């Protein structure tokens, strides 16, 4: 059984501790960087959710941590909406592997 951890602004993440999610409040990019290091420092497998607004300048760190098989860092939108980072990350992975951009028509 592995933990679910979340990095988000304090006003969003504090109530989620009620559900049993391990919370790492962060209100700036620097705090988010520290929180990400703390969340990923043990070798224990975990699912880490981070809001896109905080993850803007942490793409390199997130890609590096995602290479570890026991960690999975997922970017999610927050109350201010999505900025498309998660979508771009997947697009980039697919472009690098297949060599073409994938457009899926509904």
């Amino acid at each position, binding site marked *: 059984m592995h933990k679910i951890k979340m990095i988000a602004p304090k006003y969003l993440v504090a109530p989620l501790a*009620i559900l049993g999610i391990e919370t790492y409040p962060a209100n700036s990019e620097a705090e988010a960087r520290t929180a990400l290091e703390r969340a990923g420092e043990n070798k224990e497998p975990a699912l880490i959710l981070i809001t896109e607004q905080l993850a803007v300048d942490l793409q390199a760190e997130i890609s590096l941590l995602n290479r570890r098989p026991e960690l999975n860092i997922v970017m999610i939108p927050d109350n201010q909406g*999505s900025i498309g980072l998660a979508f771009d990350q997947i697009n980039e992975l697919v472009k690098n592997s297949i060599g073409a951009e994938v457009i899926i028509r509904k």
Partner: protein
Amino acid sequence: MELLRLRRRTVLAKKGHKLLKDKLDGLIQQLLAVVKAHRRLSGTLEQKLIDIFQKLALGSAQISQAALYSATLLATSKVAVDITIKNIMGVKIPKYELKSEGDPISYGFAETPAELDQALKEFMEVLKELVMLAEHNKAIQVLASQIIEIKRRVNALEYVMIPELENSVRFIKMKLAEMERSTTVTLLKIKDIVRAR
């Protein structure tokens, strides 16, 4: 001997190249299927998460730190993720399953705003889909890195190893044919000399 060994190696390399190419095509198909499922899920999940976080933000603003802290202490809910490994064409991909126990709303309702309770309930419902999204995410990462590795091996076989082996085979055949011709000419010369005597 060397020619026989090289011929065997060429046949083996061509067989390996065909197998790797088939594996590559299979993995690309798998990747596209997972990407499609990921896009579909993230499309529906995005708006739900935005709504939930807006309610959480509203609820957070209406509750005091002390009340939130005491609600956290009273909470009995626990969530965790169970990870098993599934094998797709020799690639190990983690499969996530959400395990939750306890009631998410196990604290008193008196001090907590309705938006917060509603948001927490909705977040629990959406957590299962979020875990599924995380599974698709990891699958895409693992498949993409495997595809890049296999592509490199296929290209190495197709453009480096097989041409080198074929060139070596051609060179040896050429040398052997030359040796045969020169032996034939030498024998004819010796015959002429012996006849002349």
